[in-house]
């Protein structure tokens, strides 16, 4: 049965020869050290053909490190990789690829200035023969279109990667792996930037792949997905395997296993006590980098003591909206008022200084300076202000004591305040940003994708801090493409679509309805509040 479908579904110009033998993978005693840190400590894992093997673990548990070794990007210090009973050494991804392994990386491995088709072709280019290796772009494009049709993952072969929203980039990564006809596919947090629908589609693709006898290693922080797709679950903590579980295990149990303590997956919050409006946006119009209208006349109001969630599929103008509020992007028209004072035209520094906290959506690009220490990152936008310094000089001891305090308060896991932030795990980098932005009295707190790629323990923590901030009377604006997150945190939800606010609904609205709004389909119910 599986064989037949395999033959049927084989795309017309598949790149790699089809392997008849299913792939069984064993990792034996894999150990990897970075200096004193043991990222992987004698890890044993077996992946059977045709199964989805989920890897769970906190940020920094060592999941990506393990997979990078399996893919030849890193070399293990100890241990063996055994494929179909044969121990193999992967010196580079080339070796892994030829062994039939493919990987979708947590951080996109896409060349931003290339088109989708170029990225997908890279490394396995179609050429018109000859010694020059003249590229056959037509065939490359067709391959992309074929694969994308076959798996229902729409991608435009001619779009430049840098112009694509992250969700689309993620699809490109997946298509790239699929065109290569691999036997074992590693998916490292592929769903972190996908919408619920997209995630659903991906799970379907994964099922069809396993039906073909291929195996999948699946890494995610979303327990629902694990339960929905995994055949087996391995949980890693601090580099060691701390247990295996079956898909029947409850989410709470899984979470506890990952983090080592009980985690509440629901946001714990009392009812909001909204006060006066603090942020008022009127008729805001903003263009994106290419001069295309991204925000097209948005009116919004955020009140003290409430969380206003902005739901929407990534790329519908949320980014530009927030950047315009923060003075990082010029507003073409409209007004943004904070406590009645206009923010349009003010510098980011002034805006931050007037009591606004901001967690940008792309933390490694915009949130932290990786070369800077944790302590320095904790004052990145307050370095020239009391108590840390003045426009001339920075008080080192204040910076140090602040760091110690925040590290304690926000449970940032790092070796010391002097550790460069770049060596922290993503979740902890995020906590650094959140800690910094919450460590001064705020009128307005804006958080974009506050928990993207963050483990459940940290999510719980960050959510609690956001609610805490709300309860102190700050107006909070949470932008997230994660519907669960918006629904859990917000007191009111604005759904954004193509640069406009389609509706403002209450979090009790049925999810399907909000989902439809996010897709641009307005029903009769939603208009009420507007």
């Amino acid at each position, binding site marked *: 049965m599986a064989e037949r479908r395999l033959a049927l579904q084989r795309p017309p110009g598949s790149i790699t020869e089809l392997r008849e033998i299913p792939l069984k993978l064993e990792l034996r005693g894999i150990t990897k050290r970075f*200096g004193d840190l043991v990222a992987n400590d004698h890890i044993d894992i077996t992946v059977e053909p045709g199964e989805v093997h989920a890897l769970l673990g906190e940020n920094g548990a060592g999941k990506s490190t393990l997979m990078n070794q399996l893919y030849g990007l*890193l*070399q*293990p*210090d*100890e*241990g*063996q*990789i055994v494929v179909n009973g044969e121990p193999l*050494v992967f*010196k580079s991804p080339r070796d892994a690829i030829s062994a039939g392994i493919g990987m979708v990386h947590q951080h996109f491995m896409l060349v931003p200035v290339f088109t989708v088709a170029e990225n997908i072709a890279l490394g396995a280019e179609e050429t018109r023969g000859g010694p020059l290796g003249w590229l056959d772009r037509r065939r490359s494009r067709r391959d992309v279109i074929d694969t994308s049709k076959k798996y229902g993952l729409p991608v435009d072969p001619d779009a430049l990667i840098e112009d694509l929203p992250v969700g689309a980039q993620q699809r490109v990564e997946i298509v790239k792996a699929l065109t290569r006809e691999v036997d074992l596919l590693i998916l490292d947090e592929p769903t972190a930037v996908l919408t619920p629908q997209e995630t659903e589609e991906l799970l379907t693709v994964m099922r069809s792949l396993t039906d073909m006898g291929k195996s999948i290693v699946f890494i995610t922080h979303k327990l629902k997905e694990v339960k929905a797709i995994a055949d087996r679950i391995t949980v890693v903590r601090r580099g060691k395997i701390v247990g295996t579980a079956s898909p029947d295990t409850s989410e709470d149990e899984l979470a506890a296993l990952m983090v080592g*303590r009980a985690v509440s997956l629901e946001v714990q919050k009392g009812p909001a006590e909204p006060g006066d409006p603090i942020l008022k946006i009127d008729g805001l119009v903003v263009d994106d980098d290419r001069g295309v209208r991204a925000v097209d006349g948005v009116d919004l109001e955020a009140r003290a003591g409430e969380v206003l969630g902005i739901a929407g599929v990534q790329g519908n103008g949320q980014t530009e909206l927030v950047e315009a509020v923060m003075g*990082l992007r010029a507003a073409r028209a409209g007004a943004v008022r904070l406590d009645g004072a206009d923010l349009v035209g003010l*510098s*980011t*520094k*002034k*805006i*931050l*200084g007037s009591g606004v906290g*901001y967690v*940008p959506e792309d933390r490694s*690009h*915009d*949130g*932290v*300076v990786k*070369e*800077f*220490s944790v*302590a*320095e990152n904790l004052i*990145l*936008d307050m*370095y*020239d202000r009391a108590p840390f*310094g003045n*426009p*001339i*000089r*920075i008080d*080192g001891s204040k910076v*140090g004591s602040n760091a110690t305090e925040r*590290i*304690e*308060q*926000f*449970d*940032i*896991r*790092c*070796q*010391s*305040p*002097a550790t*460069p932030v*770049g060596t922290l795990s993503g979740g902890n980098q995020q906590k650094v940003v959140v800690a910094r932005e919450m460590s001064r009295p705020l009128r307005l707190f804006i958080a974009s994708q506050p928990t993207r790629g963050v483990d459940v323990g940290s999510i*719980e923590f960050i959510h*609690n801090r956001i609610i*805490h901030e709300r309860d102190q009377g700050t107006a909070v604006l949470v932008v997230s493409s994660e519907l669960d997150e918006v629904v859990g945190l917000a007191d009111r939800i604005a759904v954004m679509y193509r640069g406009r606010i389609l509706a403002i609904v209450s979090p009790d609205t049925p999810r399907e309805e909000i989902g439809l709004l996010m897709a641009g389909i307005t029903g009769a119910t939603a208009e009420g509040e507007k």
Partner: protein
Amino acid sequence: MTAETQTPAVKKPEPAGDDSFMNVFLRNLWSANNVLLTALSVVLAVVIGAVLIVVSDAEVLAKFGYFTARPSDALSSSWELISTAYSELLMGAFGDPAVFQAWFAGTATWQQAFTPLSETLTYAAPLVFTGLSVALAFRGGLFNIGAQGQAVLGCIVAGVAGFSFGLPIVLNLAVALVAGVIGGALWGFIPGLLKARTGAHEVITTIMLNYTSALFLSWLVIQKGVQAEGRSDAISKTVAESAQLPSPGGVLRVHLGIILAVLVTAGVAWLLKRSAFGFEIRAVGANPHAARTAGISVARTYVLLMAVAGGLAGLGGATQVLGTAHALTPAVAGNIGFDGLLVALLGRNRPWSTFFAALLFGALRAGGNRIQSFAGISLELVTVLQALIVIFIAAPALVKAIFRLRAARSTGLGASLAKG
């Protein structure tokens, strides 16, 4: 609120001082044996230099022609040649023991004994400034090839101020120095502004400004009012005595510039490490996007940074004119800007390392003069030696590999092969 109930943060080892990422990185790179490494780098350069010296000497080379017949000839003469060359280099940079003895015996003056050191410091002083200029810009993510042009402008403005105003002592010097800083700052400000406003790449603009300033200087020195009276060649009036950097005089050319260099290095170190502007520079240099998001104006930082860097290079030019040259000529700035580039690179863009790199370059220049004049070894060879020393010091991994100190690259691969 949940913080208290959570597992305590990972054990926090003692903070290792307020080290930057660079420091941590370097420490790892150099591991425990960095003194050894530096020494070995110099040894390597010296050995290769020795080979060149021998190869380039026809007489000694001829003796290798009958090496099998009488190896002692070739070996002893090579040894003699090499040891003279290097001892001259050292004596030219640090001091001649014979002269010290003579001084103790009363047949030479202390000035004579300290001449070599004075020379080293004289050459080093402007390089400290231009080196700092390049280093500072680098820390902010800008490649300032323009230190040369900025130094030239510093020379011009300081020089003109030095012979024009006739202010009283101290004040005249101060004004001339400040003028030099302003001249350089202006020449740095232009590419900074262009970068911030139009995005023009600083490498192109500064290269172009280098040539422009050199041409401007060669035009200026032969203009009436600037050209020295009664002279037909390209030399300006002499800087007033009161505007010259004080110096012991006589054989000792060293001047106040080197003290200034120490102070300015300390200032730049403070600026980078403790000041708000330094924080901005480093943040913009490491991640301009994050800096912008945190409210730092990247454009303003670029403009100010280039102006400050230009000012530093200008100060280098000013010390050259007010300290050693005392008059403007078309080539008065020599090569201090380009040498400053190497100095900064060698000092890995950290202020005090740059300072010491400048001292090393000064020593090589001073020693190079002596090796040329006493041992008759060509200036070109000294240049090659300089290049070799910089290469080896900048490439510790190479030195390690040559001496098989420790696998130069990650051992991961070898280990996995051995065990897998």
